[in-house]
């Protein structure tokens, strides 16, 4: 009887520990389960940008038609864009311009 009781207690504690580890993340990759920090695959290049390869936002309030800063999605030539383009005629916004009070 005592043996059975001891086994039950150990089993209960083991279950509790497993549950606690799942909650705290202990044991997940040995990092207390911290969700963040991730290595990328190795062996790739991050450069090779050609002429005209621009990735940043435009300046505020650029409505210049010659730059075509509007939401009409062109996608790839001959194909409709996979995304839902912003309404035609609406200028692409820029980043926030207000400075943080110091």
């Amino acid at each position, binding site marked *: 009887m005592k043996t059975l009781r001891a086994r039950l207690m150990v089993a209960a504690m083991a279950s509790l520990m497993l549950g606690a580890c799942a909650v705290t993340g202990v044991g997940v990759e040995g990092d207390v389960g911290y969700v963040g920090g991730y290595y990328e695959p190795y062996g790739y290049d991050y*450069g090779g940008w050609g002429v005209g390869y621009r990735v940043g936002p435009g300046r505020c309030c650029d409505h210049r038609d010659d730059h075509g800063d509007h939401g009409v999605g062109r996608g790839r030539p001959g194909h409709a864009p996979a995304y839902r383009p912003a309404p035609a005629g609406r200028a692409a916004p820029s980043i926030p311009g207000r400075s943080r009070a110091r």
Partner: protein
Amino acid sequence: MTCTYRWRRGLASLLAAALMLGGALARAADFQLPALNSPASDEHHPGKMVWADLATPDLAAAEKFYGALFGWTFQHIRAGEVSYAVVLLGGRPIGGIVEKPIPAGQHQQPAWLTFLATNNIDDGKKVAVAHGAKVLRDIKSYPLRGRQCVLSDPEGAVFALLASSSGDTPDYLPATGDWIWSSLHAKDAGTEAAFYQNLLGYDVFDQPSDDGLEHVILSTDNYARASANDLARGSARRHSHWLNFVRVENAAETSAKVAALGGRVLVEPRVDRHGGMVAVLADPAGAPFGVMEWSESDTKAEPK
């Protein structure tokens, strides 16, 4: 006799288990990521890049490099096996650096992980998975921070979602040394833009360019938050990834400083869409990041 022995053995196991459990809970409780906002606010900006984490094998070396380059300072958090430094700019937390050893004989690429704000991380995870994403680290709660998870998008670009419990960082022009921009580089920028639009509700603006590649701006709240770009053609070894940019006064000077500090210049300083210079750099461990000049006059008027 046998029963007594077993009972004692059971009791010993019980005590050991209790000690281990206590230790585990204490270690987890020690890991206190800072709140995004202090004091907390109700301001939320889904789709905005609100945090970045660097995974690197040498925390001290990373601190030395980024501290010298951007004037960042660091607040250490250690819990169990995790060595983590909160990145501070003017005393405000803007990111983190986590030390992750790379096992001998293995090659892994240190990188900055982009955290995008979401209002509902449970729904976000479901939508992402329904549209082809994979869960790399499932949702986890942190007392002051909120809930976050790490995903890879349909092309494999890794990013994180963060539902901040203290609100998202306010929409100000980032100070010099702060994150100012994020760009996604993908095999098919348009399809990837559609994925993130479904996930975070972006407005998507096509940006015609001279290089024959697709470039789009992703915006929410009438502010540009990020761009999605076809991968550049200049290299055969390409994979989809996010890249985060720090605001600098002079991209050329910063690039020279990076080289002097043991890093590398991956894309030489060049004029970007707003007329200022950008460059892509790598820290001494190889983690890529961008720098971007941005003058006050570039956003001299508010769009709303």
